[in-house]
């Protein structure tokens, strides 16, 4: 039985596009719903001693110039207030607290988070830099680790393409979740993205290592055959590694705390994508390059255009 994973590469690329394009479209048109880490603002979670209507809380906030706040209720008489920055330790905060207590009885502060607008911009920039730095660091390392192959940079670039594939799908899904169910992107999300970058490359390298090893004794086989053989050899391992990680993440998703749920969800998506791209995309990119398929495609395109041009004249 011969399993051909590499031969059907354009089908796998097409499947990836099916997942990438909607997300990419959403990123371009809607962007991401940024949390207060990036925009500045306040999230204030309080536990009230009796059920309250969001509108009543809104009215109290309005008296202090925070009328545009978004108030939600949560379990056990909890309320979550989202509003523009309210400084901890400020008189306004004390006044609002007192006013809420006066109107609704004793309150307990469960969580309070406030970020100034300028810091938000700084965190946003740092996040970008971190992602770019991680990509460059990984590229350099792969080029070094594969320095004995014919084309070390190619391995690096293929790994980066697979990684961008994973990150794009992940960010795309969160962009869609943003306007569909209001999921916000925070610094934990950036952490998830960076972890996915690490995992994606981790997974890809294992396959590449096998290609490198098998190329050493290829015995007249074509590059494509060797790559396909290597992918088939490592596929069980790729699936098993991911499965063990997916198991732990599912356990975290089901039993872990509320506050890390979206973080775990992001990791789950990233790791599933990472496994897919390391089996179905990364090595295939090597083959596409090695067979000069893009060159030929462009040449054919150009030839076609020239033919068109000549017939038209």
């Amino acid at each position, binding site marked *: 039985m011969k399993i051909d994973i590499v031969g059907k590469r354009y089908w796998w690329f097409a499947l990836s596009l099916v997942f990438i394009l909607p997300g990419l479209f959403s990123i371009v048109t809607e962007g991401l719903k940024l949390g207060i880490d990036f925009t500045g603002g306040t999230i204030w979670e309080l536990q009230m001693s009796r059920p309250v209507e969001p509108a009543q809380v809104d009215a109290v906030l309005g008296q202090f110039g925070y009328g545009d706040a978004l108030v939600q209720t949560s379990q056990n008489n909890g309320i979550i207030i989202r509003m523009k920055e309210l400084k901890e*330790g400020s008189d306004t905060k004390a006044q609002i607290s007192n006013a809420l207590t006066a109107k609704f009885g004793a309150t307990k502060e469960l969580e309070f988070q406030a*970020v100034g607008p300028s810091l938000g911009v700084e965190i946003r920039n740092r996040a970008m830099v971190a992602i770019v730095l991680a990509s460059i660091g990984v590229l350099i390392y792969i080029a070094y680790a594969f320095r004995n192959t014919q084309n070390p940079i190619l391995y690096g670039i293929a790994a980066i393409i697979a990684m961008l594939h994973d990150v794009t799908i992940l960010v795309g899904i969160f962009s869609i979740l943003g306007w569909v169910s209001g999921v916000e992107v925070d610094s934990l999300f950036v952490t998830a993205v960076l972890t996915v970058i690490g995992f994606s490359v981790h997974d890809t390298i294992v396959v590449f290592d096998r290609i490198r090893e098998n190329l050493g004794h290829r015995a007249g086989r074509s590059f494509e055959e060797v790559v396909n053989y290597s992918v088939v050899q490592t596929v069980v391992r790729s699936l098993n590694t991911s499965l*063990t*990680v997916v198991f732990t993440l599912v356990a*975290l998703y089901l039993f*872990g705390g509320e506050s890390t749920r979206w973080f775990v969800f992001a990791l789950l998506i990233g790791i599933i994508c990472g496994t897919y791209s390391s089996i179905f995309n990364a090595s295939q990119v090597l083959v596409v390059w090695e067979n000069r398929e893009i060159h030929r495609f462009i040449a054919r395109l150009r030839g076609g255009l020239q033919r068109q041009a000549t017939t038209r004249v």
Partner: protein
Amino acid sequence: MRGFRWNTWYTFAFIVLLTLSAAWIDIPGDRIDPFGWKQHVFVHQGLDLQGGLQVVLQAKPAPGQSVSSGTLQGTLTTIKRRVNGLGVSEPLVQTRGSDQIVVELPGVDNPANAVKVLQQTALLEIIDPKGQQLAPGTVVTTNLGGPENVNGAATPGATPGATPGATPGATPAAGTTGATPAPTGPVYQTIVTGADLKDAFPTTDNIGQLVVGFTLKSSAADKFYQFTSSHLNQPMSIVIDKTVISSPTIQGAIRDSGQISGVPATQVNDLALQLKSGALAVPLEVIQSQVVGPTLGQDSIDKSIIAGIAGLAIVGLFMILFYRLPGVMSVFALLIYTALVFALFQLIPVTLTLAGIAGFILSIGMAVDANVLIFARLKEELRMGHPVRRAVDAGFDHAWPSIRDSNISTMITSAILFWFGRYTGASIIQGFALTLFVGVSVSMFTAITVTRTFLRLLLSQTWIHNHWWFGVEATSMPLPNPREAAGD
């Protein structure tokens, strides 16, 4: 007996020793700790687990001025002193960038008050109230300025009393700013300021009453002696930010150390702290804060422990079902891994946050990756018809480059995460990055050395050479392999 088996026994003994020490560190309580060695070794919980306050303060110098690194360090010292005064068990105070200070106060009771204490740009003055008993709360004007320029007065250059003979009636320069009308009350003479103070502390006087003790720098001692000796049995007033907080009566001439009595017992600590903190070098603005209630944290810990046990159990079950005997070895390795990592967290120490615990549980899944790689190789070698002993060694040797290369890429990203984490509210993301880094490093040791040693020790048993133990049918045909096709 071949030589390598002795080495394997040594490695085995080392692993057992290491595991026992880790277990000893991990097991809570001091029943097995007769010498008190574990006193300073414990799990450091992040803010999101034990509740508390995290706040980022930004220096806001007056327009036209910039914050030098010296000023920031000075401010840091002041903040640290104030934080110590708050009596929080494991505070964290550090500078960030060129003009920010990050403060984490786990388990603090009253976050709003704590922020106020940190932020105060207090200028402490001891003034001559001209014989009056100024009540606490009275707002005064001194020869260093009135209440309208409280923030301006906090600049470090304001050395008071440099002109002891200044005419008491001198109009304060600040009156010309016109922001608020200058009070028309009398202008009091400042004797010493916070800059002259060496230390202040709660203590008891000779009749056992709680009082605030203080010592002055030698440069100010003469000046203070002069004043106190000529104003015996008259009041002096302690003023912070132009507001009188206490007006004790001078009961003796004081040169460089004295006591303030008559302060209500509940306020002694606060007053000592306020005195000691002196003035902040620059005003600070809160640009980021996070308060987590303690109940939320405990709930998260309970949930994470359940998730961790569930994760460990599923991964273990999977490994055993899929890889049989080597799978059992990898489960032992995984348990040793968990014990070692948890011990390292306490020793380094790594502050455990929710994200960090998630990273730890995630790393359990990743820790078996090296085993999966090795065992997959082992199965391949067995299918090729190699004997068990050779297959075990080949499995480990061939899998090593992949394990090394792939783990280094994870280490690179976790190092960058650590850098990024510093700018997004300190410990939460850094905790995750450190956890991942430690996890990956330790997993390389446990997955390789531990499983290899265990398997090698078992090789002396005859039953192990049955391929069933490895999930490979003894009669299975070798798969086509390019190496064999090449006559390798």
